């Protein structure tokens, strides 16, 4: 099914403390994507702006950004599923183009996490979960994923060292990604001896906050085949949800929303997990990547640890995962993350990933999760 394509991608460097406003941050990614596609603003039929609003001082940023990017009078609107906002945006763009409503739609994800003070950030962290029934106990994202890690350890015999190996891999590739916020290598010993954040997760098990923006341009088949770059086709776009409360979960050893979204995406694309040549998964914490191996079917439940122990998710392995450093090293500017993951796969499929390039991939997959497994998005891309 090659009817809707990605024709332009852009991403800013992910940094701590971007010295500019959100509109300038957005412009940097927009410019790169527009130059990549060879398009002019008046050719964009509509724009979808994606971020997590709790970090934005600007209310309703879509309108502000549409003006700054020169996209008036075309329609714009805002999509939010926290950390997976721009994957949700891409899925909506796909539907808009596939339906014939627009020929070309732009998806811009951004987050300036440093827009608010760290005290404000700490306050918002407490409200990331269900505010009636879980936040009053003092919950935080790392602690929720830590509960998943402990459940995985208990059921499958996964070890802290296995999670550490995932962090070492992320750092290996962060070191060769000039847009990564964390470009230093990390040793297993460093991961295992770092301060505990929420047991059993330690500092290096957690992703790096960052400021950044990403931009994707989606086009119909007619337009896609006459632009600057070879089109990368959207073959599958799965999306699903799961209860945000832990009480509503069947188990804590995987993410049901990811499994559901993956099944949809595989079915839509007509492929199996074994057909995927390169993947980006939502490694907000090391345990999240381990669960992704299993939820996506790269390994059977409980056997994800064998993949990382054998380095099968390294660039030269059976299924390379997050060879751009992932959220762990590249950084996680919430609204920009999905778009950045998608950009990485587009570059891989075009053969433009430089030092990070995997050998001749034909099919790539993006797994992007919002909240603690509340919103699951799995996108499958392919080249001609």
């Amino acid at each position, binding site marked *: 099914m090659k009817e809707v394509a990605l024709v332009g991608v852009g991403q800013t460097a992910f940094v701590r403390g971007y010295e500019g406003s959100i509109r300038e941050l957005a412009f940097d990614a927009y410019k790169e994507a527009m130059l990549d596609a060879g398009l002019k603003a008046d050719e964009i039929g509509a724009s979808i702006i994606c971020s997590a609003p709790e970090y934005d001082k600007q209310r309703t940023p879509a309108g502000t950004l549409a003006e700054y990017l020169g996209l008036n009078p075309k329609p714009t609107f805002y999509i939010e599923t926290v950390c997976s906002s721009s994957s949700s945006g891409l899925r909506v763009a796909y539907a808009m183009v596939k339906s014939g409503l627009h020929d070309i739609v732009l998806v811009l994800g951004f987050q300036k996490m440093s827009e608010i003070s760290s005290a404000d950030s700490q306050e918002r962290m407490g409200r990331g979960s269900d505010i009636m029934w879980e936040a009053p106990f003092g*919950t935080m994202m790392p602690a929720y994923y830590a509960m998943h890690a402990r459940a995985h350890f208990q059921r499958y015999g996964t070890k802290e060292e296995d999670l550490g190996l995932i962090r070492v891999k992320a750092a290996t590739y962060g070191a060769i990604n000039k847009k990564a916020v964390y470009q230093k290598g990390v040793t297993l010993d460093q991961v295992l001896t770092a301060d505990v954040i929420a047991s059993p*997760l330690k500092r290096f098990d957690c992703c790096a906050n960052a400021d950044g923006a990403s931009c994707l341009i989606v086009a119909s088949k007619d337009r896609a085949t006459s632009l600057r770059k070879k089109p990368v086709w959207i073959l599958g776009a799965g999306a699903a949800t799961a209860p945000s409360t832990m009480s509503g979960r069947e188990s804590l050893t995987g993410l049901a929303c990811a499994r559901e979204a993956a099944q949809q995406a595989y079915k839509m694309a007509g492929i199996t997990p074994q057909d995927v040549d390169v993947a980006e998964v939502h490694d907000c914490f090391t345990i999240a990547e381990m669960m992704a191996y299993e939820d996506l079917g790269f390994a059977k439940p409980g056997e994800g640890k064998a993949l990382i122990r054998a380095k099968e998710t390294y660039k030269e392995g059976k299924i390379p995962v997050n060879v751009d450093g992932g959220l762990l090293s590249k950084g996680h500017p919430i609204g920009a993350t999905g778009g950045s993951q998608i950009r990485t796969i587009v570059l891989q499929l075009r053969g433009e990933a430089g030092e990070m390039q995997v050998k001749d991939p034909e099919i790539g997959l993006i797994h992007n999760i919002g909240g603690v497994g509340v919103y699951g998005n799995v996108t499958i891309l392919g080249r001609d």
Partner: protein
Amino acid sequence: MGFEKFGVVSFTSQTKAAPFIDHLEKGVLAGTRCKDCGTFFFPPRPDCFKCLSSNVVWSEIVGKGKLVSYSTLIYAPTGFEGDLPYTIALVEYDKKIKIFGRLSKEIKPEDMKIGMELTHKVVRLPNDRITYEFVKA
């Protein structure tokens, strides 16, 4: 009103689930049961999404459950720093009812174990606040 008393920091004051607090005040941890289709809910709620009824009764959670998983926090969000370190947990009771809360500080870290039997007790906090926690069964 009333729900703002729940937990160390509460973010909600107005909810039709506020009788939860009245039950806690009596030492009872309660969920709701739909009178029309019989579905039991924890967290409690005044609306049944299965049959669309808003005809629910409060029903006490009794007995003991097993620890599904837990994590001890070394860093906390604003307002919870004074409690550090504390342990959040998910406990599964009969009929797959899962309850989220904290483990009592009486349980030593070395004694925490997935699968251990726990029960709950109501805890009064300073400033007329109230919550529940899990203790060894």
